[in-house]
């Protein structure tokens, strides 16, 4: 990532655009909550979809993940692997009811 003055000034403009997008995303999240989707699954999906876009903007631009070194991606990939494993265990546990031995 090059950090000379011109690049930084370009980045500053990008940060302000991302800031605007995050504000719009927050208002959208609250507005969507008022809409009746007639399904909790759709409501959850829409709310989490907007949250994911906002998270991508913060991580991608404010944390510079859009243009980072390979080692950072490596750390994040292994974190993602274990995080998915953690969630999978949770979902698995929800269907693993204890039964009485006969």
């Amino acid at each position: 990532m090059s950090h000379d003055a011109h690049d930084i000034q370009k980045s500053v403009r990008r940060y302000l655009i991302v800031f605007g997008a995050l504000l719009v995303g927050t208002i959208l999240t609250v507005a969507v909550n008022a809409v009746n989707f007639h399904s909790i699954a759709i409501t959850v999906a829409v709310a989490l979809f907007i949250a994911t876009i906002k998270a991508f903007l913060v991580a991608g631009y404010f944390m510079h993940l859009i243009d980072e070194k390979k080692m950072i991606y490596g750390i994040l990939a292994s974190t993602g692997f274990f995080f998915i494993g953690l969630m999978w265990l949770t979902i698995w546990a929800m269907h693993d009811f204890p039964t009485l031995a006969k």
Partner: protein
Amino acid sequence: MQTEILPYIVEPRKDTGLYNAKVGIWLFLASEVMLFGALFSSYILLRVGAAEGTWPHHLLNIPLGTINTLVLICSSVTVVMSWASLKLNQWSKYKFYQAITILCALIFLGIKSFEYTDKFTHYEVVLKNGTSMTGHVEGSPLFLNLNKLKAAKTESIGFHPDAHASGHAEGAKGEAGGHGEGMKIATADITKLECFGPWHSTYLAIYFTLTGLHALHVFAGACVIFAIWGPLAGLWKKDPERYTNRVEVSGLFWHFVDLVWIFLFPVLYLL
């Protein structure tokens, strides 16, 4: 005696292209993802496992949650702008932006403590005839319960029930209907008196755990940013690149705190 200087505290390693602190903070953030991930998975397990109609809704104040979200987003942009200011050698701008970041952190924690206080002064009362009500006790005492009432030999309490029997969004009086008329309840008629603390329900237990841990992160992050901004600012003159790296690393932590809140807000306040 020659002093050994730890390598790569300022300049990046040739093979990774990263300085030590940056690798360190990303490894730390990876562990933080797992910490919050474990709590999120607990939330999912509790939420999905809750019997139909038992999971409380609209117990939290959405306008306050929204303001806190906007405050954290503002602080995130000021953190990244402060780092950019240092890269452009604009010290006074850096000081200005980080001052706003610290102010945002204080506003966030102030609003959070207001929300917590509101929970600790909001009560469920169950009477001997089986009637259950939620509302506020006169004088807004904190953590009141039946044992404390009996110990203080209080004969009765003034109670302002919520307008909606199912509870209300504390603080959002205009939204959920506020309070009904006040009444006197004799202590002898009460079988249960409990505030909306973490012990009150599963939902509140996970709410306080998640938001409490997050608030601790906000506090810790604000302390670090303040230390770099104030007492440790002398490093800028001695070693500006190292100082800028410190700002970048503390900023990465702060963005992570913002990221966590981006998911906490819809999950806890809206769903």
